[in-house]
């Protein structure tokens, strides 16, 4: 039961953020579906957001150590809003690509290949 009595620090949040970041990066690299790549981007942004919020939290820091304070929350909010904007545009592009090419396979989106 020692695990349950240990306090949680920023490092634990960073570990969760790292796992989500890495799985998002793998998702972006391996998925052939364009929407799967988008989901990987969402995971990566959330992994970064966890770090911002953890550094901005007063409850996770040791006494007297330096944290981001409320600035971490602001950056996390901007990341959320920008992720929504990015998802809207990327989905529009993906739907346009699907209408023109009748596929969502990113491997076949090679019209610009020289």
């Amino acid at each position, binding site marked *: *039961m*020692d695990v*349950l*009595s240990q*306090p*949680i*620090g*920023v*490092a*634990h*949040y*960073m*570990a*969760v953020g*790292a*796992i*989500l970041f*890495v*799985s*998002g990066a*793998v*998702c972006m*690299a*391996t*998925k*052939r579906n364009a*929407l*799967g790549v*988008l*989901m990987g981007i*969402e*995971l990566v942004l*959330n992994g970064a*957001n966890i770090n911002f*919020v953890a550094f*901005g*939290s*007063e409850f996770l820091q*040791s*006494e007297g150590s*330096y944290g981001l304070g*409320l600035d971490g*929350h*602001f950056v*996390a*909010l901007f990341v*959320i809003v*920008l*992720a*929504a*904007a990015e*998802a*809207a*545009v990327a*989905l*529009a*592009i993906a*739907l346009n690509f*699907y209408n023109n090419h009748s596929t*969502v396979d990113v491997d076949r989106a090679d019209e610009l290949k020289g």
Partner: protein
Amino acid sequence: MDFSHWAPINWHTVFFLLFSIVACVFGVAVVLSSNIVRMALYLIVSLGAIAGLFFLAGADFVGSMQLLIYVGGTLVLLVFGVMLTAQGPFVSMKTGGGDWILAFLLSGCLLAILVPAGFSVRAWQNRPAAADAAEGHSSHGRAPAQLVSATDPHATKAPAKTEDAVDREVVQRNTAARIGMGLLGVRVDKLESPPSKLTGGMVGYLLPFEIVSVHLLVVLIGAAYLARTKKRAGGIGSGGVG
């Protein structure tokens, strides 16, 4: 059984473990699944658990915005995209075996760098200073059995708040009002912090807020323009939908 000799359970830790395990498991499941519809569902669960982590970290406004904007807005958009394109062969697209091996090799290396880097800084581990001193500043790994009890007066130097004080602090610590003032340009949380010349209106986030607002407007117009239905040149008949 006699539970009295056990260390008191830290409920923050319990809920952190719950939410983090759900978030990580479903995040990895997004990668491992090849069905796009299931990936969307796993992503929704994972982001919801991340919102729980935000609430645990004291970021109530960011957590609720995560639920409202991300889970309620962005992912609904993604699900609509999935429903519009998931037809026939596009529901389940497999990745080759060589790609998986390479991806897991590289991601394992990245994970092996990131996680020990997070745990290697002592200030990020939220342990009382007395425990650090007793351990002799070992730079990595958690303490083996630091049973920090709230009733032990000399073991806990840093978190010396009583339970009542902590409760009152939690009530006063909701961040929505401070974030709203900060977005308007007044940092009410930094009124006393140096440099005094910069406080009181100069360190807020009014300009980024305006930039993001205009950015969202441009993006929405652009997305509606890009995704509009148009007649295909030389298409089948007239008035074809999408």
